[in-house]
Protein backbone atom coordinates (compact mmCIF):
# COMPACT_ATOMS: atom_id res chain seq x y z
CA UNK A 1 0.00 0.00 0.00
CA UNK A 2 2.73 2.37 0.98
CA UNK A 3 4.75 1.55 -2.11
CA UNK A 4 1.71 2.01 -4.27
CA UNK A 5 1.15 5.44 -2.73
CA UNK A 6 4.77 6.34 -3.33
CA UNK A 7 4.58 5.25 -6.95
CA UNK A 8 1.51 7.42 -7.45
CA UNK A 9 3.29 10.33 -5.84
CA UNK A 10 6.23 10.06 -8.25
CA UNK A 11 3.95 9.68 -11.26
CA UNK A 12 2.13 12.85 -10.21
CA UNK A 13 5.37 14.77 -9.85
CA UNK A 14 6.51 13.51 -13.26
CA UNK A 15 3.22 14.71 -14.75
CA UNK A 16 3.61 18.11 -13.14
CA UNK A 17 7.14 18.40 -14.50
CA UNK A 18 5.81 17.45 -17.93
CA UNK A 19 3.23 20.22 -17.70
CA UNK A 20 5.88 22.70 -16.57
CA UNK A 21 7.97 21.70 -19.58
CA UNK A 22 5.02 22.25 -21.92
CA UNK A 23 4.29 25.67 -20.40
CA UNK A 24 7.95 26.67 -20.56
CA UNK A 25 8.09 25.68 -24.21
CA UNK A 26 4.93 27.62 -24.99
CA UNK A 27 6.18 30.74 -23.20
CA UNK A 28 9.54 30.41 -24.90
CA UNK A 29 7.70 30.68 -28.23
CA UNK A 30 6.44 34.13 -27.31
CA UNK A 31 9.72 35.78 -26.42
CA UNK A 32 12.58 36.92 -28.59
CA UNK A 33 13.31 39.91 -30.77
CA UNK A 34 9.64 40.06 -31.66
CA UNK A 35 7.24 39.54 -28.78
CA UNK A 36 4.17 37.62 -29.82
CA UNK A 37 0.92 37.51 -27.86
CA UNK A 38 -0.16 34.07 -26.68
CA UNK A 39 -3.37 33.83 -28.70
CA UNK A 40 -1.49 34.48 -31.94
CA UNK A 41 1.02 31.74 -31.07
CA UNK A 42 -1.77 29.32 -30.36
CA UNK A 43 -3.53 30.23 -33.62
CA UNK A 44 -0.34 29.84 -35.62
CA UNK A 45 0.44 26.51 -33.99
CA UNK A 46 -3.03 25.16 -34.71
CA UNK A 47 -3.09 26.51 -38.27
CA UNK A 48 0.36 25.15 -38.99
CA UNK A 49 -0.61 21.78 -37.58
CA UNK A 50 -3.78 21.61 -39.70
CA UNK A 51 -2.26 23.12 -42.81
CA UNK A 52 -1.66 20.67 -45.65
CA UNK A 53 1.44 22.61 -46.72
CA UNK A 54 4.88 21.45 -45.58
CA UNK A 55 6.33 23.57 -42.79
CA UNK A 56 9.09 24.94 -44.98
CA UNK A 57 6.73 26.01 -47.76
CA UNK A 58 7.19 29.76 -48.45
CA UNK A 59 4.50 32.40 -48.27
CA UNK A 60 2.78 31.35 -45.06
CA UNK A 61 3.46 34.67 -43.38
CA UNK A 62 6.15 36.09 -41.14
CA UNK A 63 4.63 34.92 -37.90
CA UNK A 64 4.33 31.37 -39.22
CA UNK A 65 8.02 31.46 -40.14
CA UNK A 66 9.11 32.88 -36.80
CA UNK A 67 7.23 30.23 -34.87
CA UNK A 68 7.51 27.17 -37.07
CA UNK A 69 10.92 27.73 -38.62
CA UNK A 70 12.88 29.74 -36.04
CA UNK A 71 11.57 29.28 -32.54
CA UNK A 72 9.85 25.92 -32.33
CA UNK A 73 12.74 23.87 -33.75
CA UNK A 74 15.29 25.36 -31.39
CA UNK A 75 12.98 25.00 -28.39
CA UNK A 76 12.40 21.35 -29.18
CA UNK A 77 16.12 20.92 -29.73
CA UNK A 78 16.86 22.55 -26.38
CA UNK A 79 14.49 20.12 -24.66
CA UNK A 80 16.02 17.09 -26.39
CA UNK A 81 19.61 18.15 -25.79
CA UNK A 82 18.84 19.04 -22.17
CA UNK A 83 17.19 15.68 -21.51
CA UNK A 84 19.99 13.82 -23.27
CA UNK A 85 22.83 15.60 -21.49
CA UNK A 86 21.20 15.19 -18.08
CA UNK A 87 20.68 11.45 -18.56
CA UNK A 88 24.15 11.06 -20.00
CA UNK A 89 25.51 12.80 -16.90
CA UNK A 90 23.66 10.38 -14.63
CA UNK A 91 25.05 7.43 -16.55
CA UNK A 92 28.62 8.73 -16.68
CA UNK A 93 28.55 9.28 -12.92
CA UNK A 94 27.54 5.65 -12.51
CA UNK A 95 30.08 4.35 -15.02
CA UNK A 96 33.05 5.99 -13.33
CA UNK A 97 31.48 5.77 -9.84
CA UNK A 98 32.28 9.38 -9.26
CA UNK A 99 29.83 12.12 -8.39
CA UNK A 100 32.00 14.71 -10.15
CA UNK A 101 31.63 13.10 -13.56
CA UNK A 102 29.71 14.81 -16.33
CA UNK A 103 28.91 13.75 -19.91
CA UNK A 104 32.26 15.07 -21.09
CA UNK A 105 34.41 13.49 -18.38
CA UNK A 106 35.85 10.80 -20.59
CA UNK A 107 37.30 13.27 -23.04
CA UNK A 108 34.29 13.38 -25.32
CA UNK A 109 34.25 17.17 -25.46
CA UNK A 110 37.93 17.35 -26.33
CA UNK A 111 37.37 14.88 -29.13
CA UNK A 112 34.42 16.88 -30.36
CA UNK A 113 36.39 20.13 -30.19
CA UNK A 114 39.24 18.64 -32.16
CA UNK A 115 36.81 17.43 -34.81
CA UNK A 116 35.10 20.81 -34.99
CA UNK A 117 38.37 22.71 -35.11
CA UNK A 118 39.67 20.60 -37.96
CA UNK A 119 36.40 21.07 -39.82
CA UNK A 120 36.37 24.84 -39.37
CA UNK A 121 40.03 25.48 -40.12
CA UNK A 122 40.36 23.15 -43.06
CA UNK A 123 36.93 23.96 -44.42
CA UNK A 124 35.75 20.42 -44.75
CA UNK A 125 32.35 21.48 -46.07
CA UNK A 126 33.31 20.05 -49.48
CA UNK A 127 33.30 16.59 -47.90
CA UNK A 128 30.42 16.76 -45.44
CA UNK A 129 28.22 19.57 -46.68
CA UNK A 130 26.90 22.43 -44.59
CA UNK A 131 27.08 20.72 -41.27
CA UNK A 132 30.67 19.60 -41.58
CA UNK A 133 31.47 21.05 -38.15
CA UNK A 134 28.77 19.03 -36.43
CA UNK A 135 29.65 15.87 -38.29
CA UNK A 136 33.34 16.15 -37.50
CA UNK A 137 32.50 16.92 -33.87
CA UNK A 138 30.32 13.84 -33.74
CA UNK A 139 33.06 11.71 -35.27
CA UNK A 140 35.58 13.14 -32.80
CA UNK A 141 33.32 12.50 -29.82
CA UNK A 142 32.53 8.96 -30.80
CA UNK A 143 36.11 8.10 -31.75
CA UNK A 144 37.25 9.23 -28.32
CA UNK A 145 34.74 6.99 -26.58
CA UNK A 146 35.89 3.99 -28.58
CA UNK A 147 39.50 4.94 -27.86
CA UNK A 148 38.79 5.21 -24.13
CA UNK A 149 37.16 1.78 -24.06
CA UNK A 150 40.03 0.31 -26.09
CA UNK A 151 42.74 1.76 -23.85
CA UNK A 152 40.93 0.86 -20.64
CA UNK A 153 40.77 -2.76 -21.77
CA UNK A 154 44.48 -3.00 -22.49
CA UNK A 155 46.41 -5.07 -19.98
CA UNK A 156 43.45 -6.61 -18.16
CA UNK A 157 39.82 -5.86 -17.57
CA UNK A 158 38.56 -2.32 -17.74
CA UNK A 159 37.29 -0.73 -14.53
CA UNK A 160 36.01 2.70 -13.68
CA UNK A 161 39.41 4.08 -12.67
CA UNK A 162 41.05 2.87 -15.85
CA UNK A 163 38.24 4.40 -17.91
CA UNK A 164 38.68 7.70 -16.13
CA UNK A 165 42.44 7.75 -16.61
CA UNK A 166 42.19 6.71 -20.25
CA UNK A 167 39.69 9.54 -20.74
CA UNK A 168 42.04 12.04 -19.12
CA UNK A 169 44.97 10.94 -21.26
CA UNK A 170 43.06 11.02 -24.54
CA UNK A 171 41.49 14.31 -23.59
CA UNK A 172 44.92 15.85 -23.07
CA UNK A 173 46.14 14.53 -26.42
CA UNK A 174 43.09 15.94 -28.22
CA UNK A 175 43.37 19.33 -26.54
CA UNK A 176 47.00 19.67 -27.52
CA UNK A 177 46.21 18.67 -31.09
CA UNK A 178 43.46 21.26 -31.16
CA UNK A 179 45.93 23.89 -29.95
CA UNK A 180 48.49 22.74 -32.48
CA UNK A 181 46.03 23.03 -35.35
CA UNK A 182 44.91 26.46 -34.19
CA UNK A 183 48.53 27.59 -33.67
CA UNK A 184 49.66 26.71 -37.15
CA UNK A 185 46.54 27.76 -38.97
CA UNK A 186 46.81 31.35 -37.70
CA UNK A 187 43.35 32.16 -38.96
CA UNK A 188 41.58 34.72 -36.78
CA UNK A 189 38.18 34.40 -38.32
CA UNK A 190 38.15 30.65 -38.00
CA UNK A 191 39.36 30.84 -34.42
CA UNK A 192 36.47 33.09 -33.58
CA UNK A 193 34.00 30.69 -35.07
CA UNK A 194 35.61 27.83 -33.12
CA UNK A 195 35.27 29.80 -29.90
CA UNK A 196 31.67 30.58 -30.73
CA UNK A 197 30.91 26.98 -31.55
CA UNK A 198 32.37 25.81 -28.27
CA UNK A 199 30.01 28.03 -26.32
CA UNK A 200 27.05 26.19 -27.72
CA UNK A 201 23.89 27.38 -29.43
CA UNK A 202 20.50 26.04 -30.40
CA UNK A 203 20.28 28.33 -33.42
CA UNK A 204 21.20 25.60 -35.88
CA UNK A 205 18.13 23.48 -35.18
CA UNK A 206 16.11 22.39 -38.20
CA UNK A 207 13.22 20.00 -38.59
CA UNK A 208 15.25 17.43 -40.49
CA UNK A 209 17.89 17.46 -37.75
CA UNK A 210 15.19 17.22 -35.08
CA UNK A 211 13.80 14.05 -36.60
CA UNK A 212 17.12 12.27 -36.20
CA UNK A 213 18.00 13.74 -32.82
CA UNK A 214 14.60 13.01 -31.27
CA UNK A 215 14.83 9.39 -32.39
CA UNK A 216 18.36 8.99 -31.02
CA UNK A 217 17.58 10.69 -27.71
CA UNK A 218 14.31 8.85 -27.13
CA UNK A 219 15.77 5.41 -27.89
CA UNK A 220 18.96 5.98 -25.90
CA UNK A 221 17.21 7.40 -22.84
CA UNK A 222 14.67 4.57 -22.87
CA UNK A 223 17.44 2.00 -23.19
CA UNK A 224 19.41 3.50 -20.29
CA UNK A 225 16.26 3.66 -18.19
CA UNK A 226 15.77 -0.06 -18.73
CA UNK A 227 19.32 -0.54 -17.46
CA UNK A 228 18.51 1.03 -14.07
CA UNK A 229 19.34 -2.09 -12.10
CA UNK A 230 22.78 -2.37 -13.66
CA UNK A 231 23.42 1.32 -13.06
CA UNK A 232 22.51 0.91 -9.39
CA UNK A 233 24.90 -2.01 -9.11
CA UNK A 234 27.66 0.04 -10.73
CA UNK A 235 27.50 2.44 -7.83
CA UNK A 236 28.13 -0.34 -5.30
CA UNK A 237 31.09 -1.60 -7.30
CA UNK A 238 32.21 -4.48 -9.45
CA UNK A 239 32.96 -6.88 -6.62
CA UNK A 240 29.57 -6.58 -4.96
CA UNK A 241 27.95 -6.80 -8.39
CA UNK A 242 29.70 -10.08 -9.16
CA UNK A 243 28.47 -11.58 -5.90
CA UNK A 244 24.99 -10.45 -6.95
CA UNK A 245 25.30 -12.18 -10.29
CA UNK A 246 26.27 -9.37 -12.67
CA UNK A 247 29.50 -8.84 -14.55
CA UNK A 248 29.39 -5.10 -15.08
CA UNK A 249 32.33 -4.83 -17.44
CA UNK A 250 30.35 -5.44 -20.61
CA UNK A 251 27.35 -3.43 -19.46
CA UNK A 252 29.59 -0.50 -18.63
CA UNK A 253 30.98 -0.39 -22.15
CA UNK A 254 27.56 -0.60 -23.73
CA UNK A 255 26.30 2.19 -21.48
CA UNK A 256 29.33 4.28 -22.34
CA UNK A 257 28.70 3.87 -26.06
CA UNK A 258 25.00 4.72 -25.77
CA UNK A 259 25.87 7.68 -23.61
CA UNK A 260 28.42 8.94 -26.13
CA UNK A 261 25.83 8.55 -28.85
CA UNK A 262 23.66 10.98 -26.88
CA UNK A 263 26.54 13.38 -26.29
CA UNK A 264 27.74 13.06 -29.87
CA UNK A 265 24.35 14.08 -31.22
CA UNK A 266 24.02 16.85 -28.64
CA UNK A 267 27.37 18.23 -29.70
CA UNK A 268 26.47 17.77 -33.35
CA UNK A 269 23.32 19.83 -33.02
CA UNK A 270 24.19 22.39 -30.36
CA UNK A 271 27.91 22.50 -29.68
CA UNK A 272 29.35 21.94 -26.24
CA UNK A 273 27.00 22.84 -23.42
CA UNK A 274 28.53 22.25 -20.03
CA UNK A 275 27.14 22.00 -16.52
CA UNK A 276 23.71 20.59 -17.42
CA UNK A 277 24.97 17.05 -17.21
CA UNK A 278 26.68 17.68 -13.90
CA UNK A 279 24.12 19.88 -12.21
CA UNK A 280 20.82 18.25 -13.11
CA UNK A 281 21.65 14.74 -11.81
CA UNK A 282 22.67 16.20 -8.46
CA UNK A 283 19.60 18.39 -8.17
CA UNK A 284 17.33 15.47 -9.01
CA UNK A 285 19.11 13.15 -6.55
CA UNK A 286 18.23 15.64 -3.83
CA UNK A 287 14.58 14.91 -4.39
CA UNK A 288 14.32 11.31 -5.58
CA UNK A 289 17.46 9.68 -4.20
CA UNK A 290 20.07 7.60 -5.97
CA UNK A 291 17.94 4.81 -7.48
CA UNK A 292 18.15 5.09 -11.27
CA UNK A 293 14.63 3.91 -11.95
CA UNK A 294 13.47 7.35 -10.76
CA UNK A 295 16.66 9.32 -11.35
CA UNK A 296 16.75 8.82 -15.13
CA UNK A 297 13.24 9.97 -16.10
CA UNK A 298 13.29 12.88 -13.65
CA UNK A 299 16.72 14.00 -14.82
CA UNK A 300 15.50 13.92 -18.41
CA UNK A 301 12.52 16.13 -17.56
CA UNK A 302 14.46 18.58 -15.44
CA UNK A 303 17.30 18.76 -17.99
CA UNK A 304 14.79 19.55 -20.73
CA UNK A 305 13.10 22.28 -18.69
CA UNK A 306 16.46 23.76 -17.72
CA UNK A 307 17.75 24.09 -21.28
CA UNK A 308 14.44 25.37 -22.67
CA UNK A 309 14.43 28.15 -20.08
CA UNK A 310 18.13 28.88 -20.56
CA UNK A 311 17.77 29.06 -24.33
CA UNK A 312 14.79 31.40 -24.02
CA UNK A 313 16.78 33.69 -21.70
CA UNK A 314 19.70 33.68 -24.14
CA UNK A 315 17.47 35.10 -26.80
CA UNK A 316 16.23 38.03 -24.72
CA UNK A 317 18.99 39.02 -22.30
CA UNK A 318 20.97 41.00 -24.86
CA UNK A 319 19.04 43.46 -27.05
CA UNK A 320 19.23 42.37 -30.71
CA UNK A 321 21.88 39.77 -30.03
CA UNK A 322 22.05 36.26 -28.73
CA UNK A 323 24.04 35.18 -25.71
CA UNK A 324 25.78 31.81 -26.22
CA UNK A 325 23.90 29.32 -24.09
CA UNK A 326 27.07 27.84 -22.59
CA UNK A 327 27.91 31.19 -20.97
CA UNK A 328 24.46 31.61 -19.49
CA UNK A 329 24.35 28.11 -18.09
CA UNK A 330 27.70 28.44 -16.39
CA UNK A 331 26.67 31.77 -14.93
CA UNK A 332 23.48 30.27 -13.47
CA UNK A 333 24.89 26.82 -12.87
CA UNK A 334 28.08 27.58 -10.98
CA UNK A 335 26.49 29.60 -8.15
CA UNK A 336 23.74 27.03 -7.86
CA UNK A 337 26.33 24.29 -7.63
CA UNK A 338 28.13 26.15 -4.87
CA UNK A 339 24.81 26.60 -3.11
CA UNK A 340 24.26 22.84 -3.20
CA UNK A 341 27.78 22.28 -1.94
CA UNK A 342 27.34 24.60 1.00
CA UNK A 343 23.94 23.27 1.87
CA UNK A 344 24.46 20.66 4.55
CA UNK A 345 21.73 18.21 3.66
CA UNK A 346 23.28 17.29 0.35
CA UNK A 347 26.82 16.07 -0.01
CA UNK A 348 27.10 15.12 -3.69
CA UNK A 349 26.02 11.57 -3.25
CA UNK A 350 28.38 10.97 -0.37
Amino acid at each position, binding site marked *: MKNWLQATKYTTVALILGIILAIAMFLALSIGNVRLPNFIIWETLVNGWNSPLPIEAPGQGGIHDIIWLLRLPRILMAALVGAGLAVSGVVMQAIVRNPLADPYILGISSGASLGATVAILFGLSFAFGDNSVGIMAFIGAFAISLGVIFIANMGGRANSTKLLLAGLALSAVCSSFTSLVVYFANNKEAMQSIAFWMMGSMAGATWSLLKVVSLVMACSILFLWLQS*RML*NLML*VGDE*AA*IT*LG*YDLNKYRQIHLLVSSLIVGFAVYSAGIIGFVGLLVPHVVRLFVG*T*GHIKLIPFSALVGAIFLVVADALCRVILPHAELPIGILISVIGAPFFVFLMVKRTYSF*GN
Partner: protein
Amino acid sequence: MEISTQNIQLSVGKKNILRGIDIELYSNEILGIIGPNGSGKSTFLKCVYRTLKPDAGKITLDGKSIDELSYRDTALKMAVVAQHNIYNFDFKVIDIVLMGRAPYKKLLSRDTKDDFELARAALAKVGLLEKAEQSFNTLSGGEQQRTILARALAQDTECLILDEPTNHLDIRYQLEIMELIQKLQRTTLIAVHDLNIAAKFCHRLIALRDGQVVGQGTPKELLTVDFIKELYGVESSVHYFGDNIYPHVVFESTL
Protein backbone atom coordinates in the same frame (compact mmCIF):
# COMPACT_ATOMS: atom_id res chain seq x y z
CA MET B 1 25.40 -27.43 -0.54
CA GLU B 2 29.07 -28.31 -0.60
CA ILE B 3 32.07 -26.34 -1.75
CA SER B 4 35.46 -27.81 -2.34
CA THR B 5 38.68 -26.21 -3.50
CA GLN B 6 41.74 -27.95 -4.84
CA ASN B 7 45.20 -26.47 -5.01
CA ILE B 8 44.12 -22.82 -5.25
CA GLN B 9 47.09 -20.67 -6.17
CA LEU B 10 47.30 -16.97 -6.77
CA SER B 11 50.20 -14.61 -7.07
CA VAL B 12 50.30 -10.87 -7.51
CA GLY B 13 53.52 -9.81 -9.16
CA LYS B 14 56.20 -12.01 -7.66
CA LYS B 15 54.41 -12.50 -4.38
CA ASN B 16 52.66 -15.83 -3.93
CA ILE B 17 49.61 -14.95 -1.90
CA LEU B 18 47.92 -18.35 -2.08
CA ARG B 19 50.10 -21.43 -2.40
CA GLY B 20 47.76 -24.29 -3.03
CA ILE B 21 44.75 -24.29 -0.74
CA ASP B 22 42.47 -27.32 -0.42
CA ILE B 23 39.34 -27.11 1.65
CA GLU B 24 36.09 -29.01 1.91
CA LEU B 25 32.98 -27.21 3.10
CA TYR B 26 30.17 -29.59 3.97
CA SER B 27 26.44 -28.95 3.98
CA ASN B 28 25.13 -26.84 6.84
CA GLU B 29 28.44 -26.54 8.64
CA ILE B 30 30.06 -23.32 9.74
CA LEU B 31 33.67 -23.42 8.65
CA GLY B 32 35.89 -20.71 10.09
CA ILE B 33 39.10 -19.51 8.48
CA ILE B 34 41.64 -18.11 10.93
CA GLY B 35 45.16 -16.83 10.51
CA PRO B 36 47.26 -13.72 11.00
CA ASN B 37 46.97 -10.57 8.88
CA GLY B 38 48.25 -11.14 5.36
CA SER B 39 47.84 -14.91 5.56
CA GLY B 40 45.52 -14.86 2.52
CA LYS B 41 42.11 -15.29 4.20
CA SER B 42 40.35 -12.54 2.26
CA THR B 43 42.15 -13.37 -0.97
CA PHE B 44 41.10 -16.98 -0.69
CA LEU B 45 37.49 -16.02 -0.02
CA LYS B 46 37.57 -13.69 -3.02
CA CYS B 47 38.63 -16.61 -5.20
CA VAL B 48 35.70 -18.62 -3.90
CA TYR B 49 33.19 -15.84 -4.48
CA ARG B 50 34.75 -15.10 -7.85
CA THR B 51 35.97 -11.54 -7.68
CA LEU B 52 39.51 -12.90 -8.08
CA LYS B 53 40.47 -15.61 -10.50
CA PRO B 54 43.05 -18.06 -9.16
CA ASP B 55 46.11 -18.77 -11.33
CA ALA B 56 45.70 -22.48 -10.75
CA GLY B 57 43.37 -24.87 -8.99
CA LYS B 58 39.74 -25.75 -9.10
CA ILE B 59 36.72 -24.66 -7.11
CA THR B 60 33.55 -26.74 -7.24
CA LEU B 61 30.05 -26.07 -5.96
CA ASP B 62 28.15 -29.30 -5.45
CA GLY B 63 30.64 -31.01 -7.71
CA LYS B 64 30.37 -28.47 -10.53
CA SER B 65 33.36 -26.33 -11.41
CA ILE B 66 32.54 -22.63 -10.96
CA ASP B 67 34.15 -21.90 -14.33
CA GLU B 68 31.17 -23.64 -15.91
CA LEU B 69 28.68 -21.54 -13.93
CA SER B 70 27.55 -18.03 -14.76
CA TYR B 71 27.87 -15.28 -12.15
CA ARG B 72 24.13 -15.43 -11.77
CA ASP B 73 24.27 -19.18 -11.09
CA THR B 74 26.75 -18.67 -8.28
CA ALA B 75 24.87 -15.64 -6.95
CA LEU B 76 21.81 -17.85 -6.58
CA LYS B 77 23.85 -20.30 -4.51
CA MET B 78 26.05 -18.16 -2.35
CA ALA B 79 25.65 -14.73 -0.82
CA VAL B 80 28.63 -12.68 0.28
CA VAL B 81 29.34 -10.20 3.04
CA ALA B 82 32.66 -8.66 2.07
CA GLN B 83 34.83 -6.22 3.97
CA HIS B 84 34.94 -2.53 3.17
CA ASN B 85 31.57 -1.60 1.84
CA ILE B 86 32.06 2.07 1.12
CA TYR B 87 29.87 3.76 -1.41
CA ASN B 88 30.46 7.03 -3.19
CA PHE B 89 26.76 7.47 -3.71
CA ASP B 90 24.12 7.36 -1.10
CA PHE B 91 21.42 4.73 -1.21
CA LYS B 92 18.58 4.16 1.16
CA VAL B 93 19.10 1.13 3.40
CA ILE B 94 16.12 -0.69 1.88
CA ASP B 95 17.50 -0.10 -1.64
CA ILE B 96 20.79 -1.75 -0.70
CA VAL B 97 18.98 -4.73 0.77
CA LEU B 98 16.74 -4.98 -2.30
CA MET B 99 19.86 -5.41 -4.42
CA GLY B 100 20.07 -8.86 -2.86
CA ARG B 101 17.13 -9.76 -5.07
CA ALA B 102 19.06 -8.80 -8.23
CA PRO B 103 20.13 -12.35 -9.20
CA TYR B 104 16.47 -13.36 -9.43
CA LYS B 105 15.65 -10.56 -11.84
CA LYS B 106 15.26 -10.62 -15.56
CA LEU B 107 16.23 -7.52 -17.50
CA LEU B 108 12.88 -5.78 -17.33
CA SER B 109 11.38 -7.11 -14.12
CA ARG B 110 10.73 -4.65 -11.34
CA ASP B 111 10.98 -5.21 -7.61
CA THR B 112 7.79 -6.94 -6.54
CA LYS B 113 5.86 -6.87 -3.31
CA ASP B 114 7.50 -10.18 -2.38
CA ASP B 115 10.94 -8.67 -2.88
CA PHE B 116 10.04 -5.82 -0.54
CA GLU B 117 8.74 -8.24 2.05
CA LEU B 118 11.85 -10.41 1.87
CA ALA B 119 14.03 -7.32 2.15
CA ARG B 120 12.11 -6.03 5.14
CA ALA B 121 12.20 -9.45 6.80
CA ALA B 122 15.98 -9.55 6.30
CA LEU B 123 16.29 -6.08 7.84
CA ALA B 124 14.17 -7.18 10.77
CA LYS B 125 16.49 -10.14 11.33
CA VAL B 126 19.51 -7.86 11.69
CA GLY B 127 17.53 -5.39 13.80
CA LEU B 128 17.51 -2.51 11.35
CA LEU B 129 13.90 -2.42 10.22
CA GLU B 130 13.30 1.02 11.67
CA LYS B 131 16.20 2.39 9.61
CA ALA B 132 14.93 1.04 6.29
CA GLU B 133 14.28 4.49 4.82
CA GLN B 134 17.47 6.10 6.14
CA SER B 135 20.43 6.72 3.93
CA PHE B 136 23.15 4.09 4.12
CA ASN B 137 26.00 6.55 4.59
CA THR B 138 24.48 8.00 7.75
CA LEU B 139 24.62 4.62 9.50
CA SER B 140 27.38 3.63 11.89
CA GLY B 141 30.00 1.12 10.75
CA GLY B 142 28.25 -1.70 12.56
CA GLU B 143 24.86 -0.81 11.11
CA GLN B 144 26.37 -0.71 7.63
CA GLN B 145 27.83 -4.14 8.18
CA ARG B 146 24.46 -5.45 9.31
CA THR B 147 22.80 -3.87 6.26
CA ILE B 148 25.15 -5.81 3.99
CA LEU B 149 24.36 -8.97 5.96
CA ALA B 150 20.67 -8.23 5.43
CA ARG B 151 21.36 -7.95 1.69
CA ALA B 152 22.99 -11.38 1.80
CA LEU B 153 19.98 -12.76 3.68
CA ALA B 154 17.60 -11.26 1.12
CA GLN B 155 19.59 -13.11 -1.51
CA ASP B 156 18.17 -16.25 0.10
CA THR B 157 20.97 -18.67 -0.77
CA GLU B 158 22.03 -22.03 0.64
CA CYS B 159 25.50 -20.78 1.31
CA LEU B 160 26.90 -17.68 3.02
CA ILE B 161 30.44 -16.40 2.68
CA LEU B 162 31.47 -13.81 5.23
CA ASP B 163 34.74 -11.93 5.50
CA GLU B 164 35.14 -10.82 9.08
CA PRO B 165 31.52 -9.85 9.52
CA THR B 166 31.96 -8.84 13.15
CA ASN B 167 34.53 -6.15 12.41
CA HIS B 168 33.35 -2.73 13.62
CA LEU B 169 30.70 -4.31 15.80
CA ASP B 170 30.46 -3.90 19.54
CA ILE B 171 30.37 -7.08 21.55
CA ARG B 172 26.60 -7.32 21.68
CA TYR B 173 26.24 -7.13 17.91
CA GLN B 174 29.17 -9.50 17.41
CA LEU B 175 27.27 -12.08 19.39
CA GLU B 176 23.95 -11.23 17.77
CA ILE B 177 25.34 -11.55 14.26
CA MET B 178 27.07 -14.82 15.06
CA GLU B 179 23.99 -16.20 16.81
CA LEU B 180 21.97 -15.26 13.76
CA ILE B 181 24.43 -17.02 11.47
CA GLN B 182 24.28 -20.06 13.75
CA LYS B 183 20.49 -20.06 13.72
CA LEU B 184 20.31 -19.82 9.93
CA GLN B 185 21.98 -23.22 9.61
CA ARG B 186 23.26 -22.49 6.15
CA THR B 187 26.49 -23.73 4.70
CA THR B 188 28.80 -20.99 5.93
CA LEU B 189 32.37 -20.07 5.16
CA ILE B 190 33.60 -17.31 7.40
CA ALA B 191 36.89 -15.55 7.97
CA VAL B 192 37.27 -14.62 11.65
CA HIS B 193 39.84 -12.58 13.52
CA ASP B 194 38.62 -13.24 17.02
CA LEU B 195 39.60 -16.76 18.10
CA ASN B 196 37.01 -16.86 20.87
CA ILE B 197 34.23 -16.02 18.44
CA ALA B 198 35.64 -18.62 16.04
CA ALA B 199 35.81 -21.22 18.82
CA LYS B 200 32.28 -20.59 20.03
CA PHE B 201 30.45 -20.53 16.71
CA CYS B 202 32.38 -22.54 14.13
CA HIS B 203 32.00 -26.27 13.72
CA ARG B 204 35.43 -26.58 12.17
CA LEU B 205 38.38 -24.27 11.71
CA ILE B 206 41.03 -23.98 9.03
CA ALA B 207 44.20 -22.06 9.81
CA LEU B 208 46.08 -20.23 7.05
CA ARG B 209 49.56 -18.85 7.15
CA ASP B 210 51.54 -17.48 4.19
CA GLY B 211 48.90 -18.72 1.81
CA GLN B 212 48.94 -22.30 3.00
CA VAL B 213 46.72 -24.43 5.20
CA VAL B 214 48.73 -25.07 8.34
CA GLY B 215 46.11 -26.83 10.39
CA GLN B 216 42.47 -27.82 10.57
CA GLY B 217 40.03 -29.46 12.92
CA THR B 218 37.37 -28.67 15.47
CA PRO B 219 38.09 -25.64 17.67
CA LYS B 220 38.96 -28.02 20.47
CA GLU B 221 41.43 -29.95 18.32
CA LEU B 222 43.02 -26.95 16.68
CA LEU B 223 43.22 -24.25 19.32
CA THR B 224 46.01 -25.41 21.56
CA VAL B 225 48.60 -23.24 23.26
CA ASP B 226 51.33 -24.57 21.00
CA PHE B 227 49.39 -24.09 17.80
CA ILE B 228 48.40 -20.52 18.67
CA LYS B 229 52.04 -19.78 19.43
CA GLU B 230 53.07 -21.21 16.08
CA LEU B 231 50.33 -19.46 14.10
CA TYR B 232 50.32 -15.97 15.62
CA GLY B 233 53.56 -15.85 17.60
CA VAL B 234 51.82 -15.08 20.89
CA GLU B 235 51.73 -16.75 24.28
CA SER B 236 48.30 -17.73 25.50
CA SER B 237 46.45 -20.08 27.75
CA VAL B 238 43.43 -22.14 26.71
CA HIS B 239 40.58 -22.82 29.13
CA TYR B 240 37.36 -24.77 29.20
CA PHE B 241 34.57 -23.41 31.39
CA GLY B 242 31.64 -25.42 32.70
CA ASP B 243 30.14 -27.78 30.17
CA ASN B 244 31.42 -25.82 27.19
CA ILE B 245 32.95 -28.02 24.54
CA TYR B 246 34.68 -25.05 22.98
CA PRO B 247 37.86 -23.49 24.31
CA HIS B 248 38.44 -19.96 25.56
CA VAL B 249 41.72 -18.41 24.63
CA VAL B 250 43.36 -15.89 26.95
CA PHE B 251 46.26 -14.05 25.40
CA GLU B 252 49.29 -13.36 27.53
CA SER B 253 52.10 -11.72 25.55
CA THR B 254 54.01 -11.68 22.28
CA LEU B 255 56.98 -13.97 22.01
